[in-house]
């Protein structure tokens, strides 16, 4: 079994069926039972799911409640968006072969230095990982070394994404200001409007989600994963065992940021736009509720939570736009008070007939706040 336990197996099987069935229904079946917009919409959800897995890795397993993961997502998105802008070439409104439309509009003389290289797809792909990774490394290096933890860390991650949002809103930054990057034409020569390209992007998102889940699972199953949980539950104790807590946190924070960057990079071509709104603190906090709803420290739960909440958002904002914020707000309150282990924790807790006393024991455990499924960790360990 190894990485793929029962929960992971069921999810991956479902994901596989989805990634095959949706494009098939869109492209191959007569009458097109799956409209094209649904393909992109679901593809977007899969990107969200990957983002949720990334957050679960740091929050669920290491206790780092990042309120800035939207920033890593957006940076990955911008990196991809910059490539897509360059691919437009001279087909823009101003037909300038070197400068994207917004730069012509803002009277740029030449391409800013940091835009160089993005005309190459491989370079953009590296940047999708490198930029969020580097930001996470620098930010985490400072923060974890000086032992900023708990809510303080949450607040400064929020300040980080807020500062980035303000910065990206400025035209002088060279990222299109308010409007961001949009009007993409194609990627690697494939038309972004065509159903086939969209189906491919959808499939890639599914693949990325599966890969992300498996990488996260491999990390959390390793001894490193146990050290992370130890850090989450009793950071000081872990230090006294000789573990450099800051290095562990930094590692998982950077990995998570890169994962978020990939999610953003896949998201942008499917929605066709990236703008500074993605950096808004509200977006980052919404990611947290995906994870909390699905179940912290379950990976699969986080992915499910993202799809559930994003789906509900699409439906509700369509039918009853007034109700959506009420529903989302209520979700935050109810999940934190009544469903600390998330939906997955609830279902599996029932299945295993977990005794009430054990739940209480888990809840009472010290540290800031920890709600983990003991059974999952134990199940792995007995064999070794």
């Amino acid at each position, binding site marked *: 079994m190894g990485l793929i336990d029962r929960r992971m197996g069921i999810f991956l099987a479902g994901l596989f069926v989805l990634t095959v069935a949706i494009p098939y229904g869109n492209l191959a079946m007569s009458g097109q039972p799956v409209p094209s917009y649904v393909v992109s919409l679901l593809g977007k959800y899969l990107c969200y799911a990957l983002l949720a897995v990334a957050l679960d890795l740091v929050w669920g397993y290491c206790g780092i409640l990042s309120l800035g993961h939207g920033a890593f997502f957006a940076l990955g998105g911008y990196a991809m968006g910059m490539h897509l802008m360059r691919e437009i070439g001279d087909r823009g409104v101003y037909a300038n072969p070197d400068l994207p439309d917004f730069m012509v509009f803002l009277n740029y003389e030449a391409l800013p230095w940091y835009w160089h290289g993005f005309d190459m797809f491989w370079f953009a792909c590296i940047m999708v990982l490198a930029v969020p990774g580097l930001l996470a490394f620098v930010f985490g290096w*400072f923060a974890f070394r000086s032992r*900023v933890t708990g809510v303080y860390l949450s607040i400064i991650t*929020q*300040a980080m994404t807020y*500062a980035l949002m303000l910065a990206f809103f400025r035209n002088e930054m060279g990222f299109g200001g308010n409007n961001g990057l949009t009007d993409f034409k194609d990627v690697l020569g494939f038309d972004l409007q065509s159903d086939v390209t969209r189906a491919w992007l959808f499939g890639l998102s599914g693949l990325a989600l599966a890969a992300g889940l498996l990488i996260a699972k491999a990390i959390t199953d390793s001894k490193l994963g146990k050290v992370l949980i130890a850090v989450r539950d009793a950071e000081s104790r872990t230090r006294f065992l000789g573990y450099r807590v800051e290095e562990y946190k930094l590692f998982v924070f950077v990995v998570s940021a890169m994962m978020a960057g990939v999610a953003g990079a896949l998201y942008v071509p499917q929605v066709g736009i990236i703008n500074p709104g993605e950096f808004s*603190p509200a977006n980052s906090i919404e990611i947290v509720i995906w994870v909390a709803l699905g179940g912290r420290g379950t990976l699969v739960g986080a992915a499910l939570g993202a799809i559930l909440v994003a789906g509900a958002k699409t439906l509700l904002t369509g039918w009853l736009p007034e109700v959506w914020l009420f529903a989302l707000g209520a979700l935050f309150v109810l999940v934190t008070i009544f469903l600390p282990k998330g939906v997955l924790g609830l279902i599996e807790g029932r299945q295993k007939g977990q005794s009430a006393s054990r739940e209480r024991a888990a809840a009472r455990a010290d540290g*800031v706040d920890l709600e983990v499924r003991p059974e999952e960790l134990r199940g792995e360990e007995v064999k070794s």
Partner: protein
Amino acid sequence: MHFLLRLLGRVLGLCVLLIAPFMVQAQSFDDLVRALPEGKFDDRAKVIAQIAQTGDDRAADTLTALLEGNLHVLKADDSLVVISKRGTQTIAADALSGEDRGVVKKRGSKKIRVNNALRRELRAAIGRLTLAHPDPVRRLAAAEAAFKAADPSQIALLHSVLETEENKKIRGALTEAVAASQLADAEATTADKLDAISVLRKRGDQEALTLLSPLVQSDDPALAEAAEEAVVKIEQSKRLWGLAQNVWFGMSLGSVLLLAAIGLAITFGVMGVINMAHGELVMLGAYTTFAVQEAIRGAFPELFDWSLLIAAPLAFLVAGGVGVAIERGCVRYLYGRPLETLLATWGISLILQQTVRSIFGPNNREVGNPSWMSGAFELGQMTITYNRLWILLFALAVFFVLLFVLKKTPIGLQMRAVTQNRQMAADMGIRTGWVDAMTFGLGAGIAGLAGVALSQIDNVSPNLGQSYIVDSFMVVVFGGAGSIWGTLAAAFSLGIANKFMEPWTGAVLAKILVLVFIILFIQKRPRGLFAVRGRAVDQ
């Protein structure tokens, strides 16, 4: 009854007395004006002098219209009108009564012409008229205009006016106008010019600087030296005033930050509860102000100036009440789990936003300034607006009242006891649940008060709270959670730092830099500026 009749008689008599001279003058003024189009330029000069002598209220305006070529004769009925442009159309108004005569067709009127000699005459006459105007405001404006004109030909006139003028402020302005004119006068003596320089040096503003700067290159060494000295001096004082103005702007921003953060200093700083709905409580305070003003506008418009004083206690109660409800309904289940509290209160903030949006609509609502909050006054070379001043005073008042409540009242003592040792406090018979609710309610209520003040300078919309939440957390964290004084220091130092950076970086970049600075600062001192240090905190 008899008394009333007598009073009426007196009043009527007074009216007649007051009106009579005007009637006589009006007669002659009207005739004189009607005589303007007639004759040659020389005749016109005489009429102008006579008009000026009438001292009629309308004289200055009429002569100005003549000077600017706006005094026309309508071809239709030969009546005199003052024309003005409205868009592409030409509009006429009767030169004497001011009555609207509607649109004038092209070539429908004829301008009364003036030559250069007449223009000089007119300018002098207008200057004399306004400098002698009974309204001191007009006189001051005229003196300032004379300063700006700096025309040597007006020196004699200014001197003559100075002899009779009694208002000190206007005398000062006139003296400065004389000085400015003398500097421009090629025939003035060096002694006169030196006097003029010292007068301008005292004035010490940008305009004085503009007048003095060319003199530095003067051929007369005495003049050049005096001018240079004056320029250096003025530039120095301007720098100081600029500094003071920046400090004032910074304090003003700081007071806004303080207001936004001070409630949080209680819920987060004292209780350790991360209340992400804090900004929305501020918003509720602002909407309470809006509702109060709406009610007042509808029912008692005369009370409008009191609207903020009425709104303040109501906003405290509304926001405080909502705060107590949040604490009892949600936060109390989450004590000891700060990250969960953060999420739950975020959810509440969304609900509050949407509630307000559903009731009041998504757009900005107009909250008016009472008269005592509008306008500005000059302090030296600084401009201080009344609303900013009141907000600063209000923020400080709220701060010190809060400090008093926490340190000197029984409820404050209980609050501190519960936060320091809940179990012990409970054992001593303190109702910890009640104290929690009251503490949270107090923080929330203060957020509501902040909303009243912020409604005066910010857009009142459902998103109002969102724009303050990051800032207010930054202030509390920077100042050191748990330290009320730290919050004060942090608010003002961040405000001032922000305003001093703005001239170099622009507002947005300044804000970003401040955020980055705080992020770095927290790395260095995770417990903030006024850290509560010791073993207990280290644990």
